[in-house]
């Protein structure tokens, strides 16, 4: 896989006035766009939480892909290449918007210290994940927990547990070895689990079971 295109592209790109070259680029772009836009929008939504931010990220990703298309030689799956571009674009976008320092998560902070922390606050025992997710509050809490994750952990959790990529693929996309991917994933899962426990939800009284729709 080639490196994803940088934002400071200095070489000349074909434009509409270049005729055939531009038409070929657009045709290649269209194939990539049609095959991958749904996947990238899904990824962007999980990462950003907000629809508008997700659309911005998809736009930035495919724009950079268009610019780097001529150098993409197909050694990797186009989707893997696009994920790599999206991860970099997301990093830049978030840095521009917030500039918040990246918090490290230590294992020690996930050791439960009170009774309510051992289980999820909204019980899901006996339900399939799909059934549990019909519970609006649980869905909301899950999305909120993922958004609270520091970005470098969120990226790994979304790629591995939500997009279903292997640890090796996530490593290739993020420039990490497999061990580092697993370490970040573990902390990210523990973080989300804690957020869904009574501790994360501020020790509210247990609501009705997830199976009961509101």
């Amino acid at each position, binding site marked *: 896989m080639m490196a994803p295109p940088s934002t400071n592209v200095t070489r000349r790109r074909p434009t509409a006035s270049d005729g055939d070259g531009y038409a070929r680029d657009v045709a290649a*772009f269209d194939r990539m766009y049609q095959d991958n*836009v749904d996947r990238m929008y899904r990824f962007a939504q999980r990462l950003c939480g907000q629809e508008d931010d997700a659309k911005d990220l998809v736009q930035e990703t495919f*724009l950079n892909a268009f610019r780097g298309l001529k150098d993409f030689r197909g050694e990797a799956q186009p989707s893997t290449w696009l994920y790599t571009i999206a991860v970099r674009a997301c990093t830049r976008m978030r840095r521009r918007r917030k500039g918040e320092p990246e918090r490290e998560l230590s294992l020690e902070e996930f050791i439960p210290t009170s009774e309510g922390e051992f289980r*999820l606050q909204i019980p899901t025992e006996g339900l399939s994940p799909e059934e549990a997710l019909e519970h609006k509050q649980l869905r909301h809490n*899950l999305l909120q927990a993922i958004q609270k994750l520091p970005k470098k952990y969120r990226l790994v959790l979304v790629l591995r547990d939500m997009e*279903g990529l292997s640890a090796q693929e996530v490593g290739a996309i993020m420039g990490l070895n497999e061990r580092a991917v697993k370490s970040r994933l573990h902390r990210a899962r523990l973080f989300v689990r804690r957020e869904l426990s009574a501790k994360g939800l501020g020790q509210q009284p247990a609501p009705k079971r997830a199976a009961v729709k509101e």
Partner: protein
Amino acid sequence: MSGSRKTVQQQDQAAGGRHGHSKAQCLQILRRLSAYVDDELTDSLCGEIRKHLGACPNCEEFVESLRQTVGLCRHNHVRSLSAHDKSRLRLSILKAAASA
């Protein structure tokens, strides 16, 4: 991390209903739980954790809640982009690419 259920319960009671393990014991188990949930541990390590879980209801609940969390992440679906938005986004991208 060893000991009978009774011992752990006694420890829990002594700790005022709180988790009765030492911090070091907790960390030792905690460190491996994702690998355990993902079935990536060797048989002996897996057996060690299972033995502990059988003796500690709190830890068993913790692992179950971690497993549920992973399941929720894996099955949480998001909306698709409408055909109109796909087409609008494509045009914006091509416009931006052409003007750069």
